[in-house]
């Protein structure tokens, strides 16, 4: 079975400019020759320290960041070169859940408006009443009260906002969701709820996840495959069990050793 997402030799380099003339004096390799595959319906856990390039990889897949070289294909189609209307179908198929629940919702819009926006974009024929019915359905899906549609984001807790962020991603009926550290800004007890919600939704809708985190315990829990990034390089890849039980690379071993034991 071909993989849903295939990343081949992907590199993202940022020039470092300094001095009066802003000459390029160096380069930061956020991603350096990374190749990965994600199978349909599976979860790839992406681990690494801050600055290891995890988020950059996610941003390349949703086209917020253009790669310096290499390619990323989705369902057999190269997506890093798509533009405008050619990209549009993939906007519906690939979605993202953000790390910071406090900044990922427009503070001026009611929840109902926030959740209706993806519907307006990708289901333009939907009537207003169908849209609000769908919004209510989405809220129920992520464990919130449909009456919350009338509220503003600031009236919710971090965990609830993250649920709304997940509902927004689900609104377009995507196949692939990039979860960019979806729980690292939340309380530990809330983390478990959100992780379980994501896993339930995966079963329900046959979703594929790229789950970015720095918490190995969470990664082990949600992932089928795990990839470890260090300074933009892929240092180790394998099944979740292999990586967490028998890490072969010294960096992975160090990462595992740094997990606090209770």
């Amino acid at each position: 079975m071909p993989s849903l997402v295939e990343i081949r030799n992907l590199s993202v380099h940022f020039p470092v400019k300094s001095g009066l003339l802003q000459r390029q004096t160096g380069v930061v390799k956020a991603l350096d020759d990374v190749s990965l595959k994600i199978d349909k319906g599976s979860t790839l856990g992406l681990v690494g320290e801050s600055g290891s390039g995890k988020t950059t990889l996610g941003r390349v897949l949703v086209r917020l960041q253009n790669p310096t070289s290499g390619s990323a294909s989705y369902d057999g189609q190269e997506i890093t070169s798509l533009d405008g209307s050619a990209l549009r179908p993939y906007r519906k198929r690939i979605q993202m859940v953000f790390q910071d629940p406090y900044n990922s919702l427009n503070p001026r819009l009611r929840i109902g408006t926030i959740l209706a926006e993806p519907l307006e974009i990708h289901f333009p024929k939907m009537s207003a009443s169908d849209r609000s019915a769908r919004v209510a359905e989405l809220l129920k899906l992520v464990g919130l009260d449909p009456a919350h549609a009338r509220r503003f984001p600031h009236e919710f807790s971090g965990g609830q906002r993250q649920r709304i962020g997940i509902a927004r991603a689900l609104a377009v009926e995507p196949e692939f969701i990039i979860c960019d550290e979806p729980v690292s800004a939340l309380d530990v007890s809330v983390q478990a709820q959100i992780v379980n919600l994501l896993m339930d939704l995966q079963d329900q809708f046959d979703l594929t996840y790229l789950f970015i985190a720095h918490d190995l315990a969470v990664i082990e829990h949600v992932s089928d495959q795990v990839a470890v990034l260090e300074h933009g390089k892929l240092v180790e890849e394998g099944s979740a069990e292999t990586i967490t039980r028998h890490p072969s690379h010294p960096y992975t071993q160090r990462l595992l050793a740094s997990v606090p034991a209770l």
Partner: protein
Amino acid sequence: MVADLFQSLLRRPAGLVSAILLILLYGAAALAPFLAPTIPSAQDLNRTYHPPTTLVWQEGRLCVRLYRLVDPSTATYEPLPGQAAPLRWFSEGPPYKLFGLITSKTHLVTVESPAALYLLGSDATGRDVFTRLLYGAGISLGIGIVGVFLTSLLGLTIGGLAGYLGGWADSLAMRLTEFLMAVPGLYLLLALRAALSSRFPSDATFLLIVVILSALGWAGTARVVRGLVLSLRERPFILATNILGQRPTVILFRHLLPNTFSYLVVAATLSVPGYILGEAALSFLGLGIQEPSSSWGLMLGQAQDIKIFMLNFWWLLTPGAAIILTVIAFNLLGDALRDAVDPRFRLPGR
């Protein structure tokens, strides 16, 4: 939305008082011809620098006392004991046009001829200061509102586009604002006045001043809006709309610019006084509103005579008090509005 805004405003006493005061001021400005006892150009050379006339209750009616000129050289007036003329409500006076449309002769209050009603005294040619203050309010306050509206519109559009588009559009807009901000304001004001005055007929001075003040004022707003848009552009909720494939114009108008509104509303309200003062400065220098029209700045300009300070004709400085009152009211209203437009500050219980 508007109802929400009004409700949250109602709960803030300072804001509410300012709002009421400003509504009264603007209402008075709009109805000036009717509220004023006379017209602003009506002179009475026998009653120059007349002090405010006292109102007394006599024979069951409100009356105005009669005065006698004691010493013309110092403009000393003295009330005639026991003599007063009754106020006539809704009576006929000099004809005027309300809102520039409705011709009428009915004034709220006038007095019979030998008596004179000077609620705030008279000026060097015996014109009623109260009447001129009311007529001047229309011009001074109008310039504030129209000027701020134009500036905000310009600043929001230019700043928003510069921040969102970036690149050469951003550079062009920002170099222009830097140029405007680098030239000393007063010189630019005078230069623009000189350059533009030939393009406007003399009775369109109002328009000319608004255009000049807005042309100078948008730069600051545009820079701040650009900065806000630049920082908002990288916020996850904007990234999320990008990922959803939202059109750039919708992102700009639904997500980016509304998030600059709380700043903009406050900045706009707080900059209204700047326009009123700008008009006052121009008129004070004799480059703004011209006689026989009246404006607060023009009235203050005419009150800079040393005689007025020496002889304590304090009522000629009432336009200054009106400016101070308006400026404070706009500042307090700006503060209250900032809280009201930001959903995060919305008070509980709704």
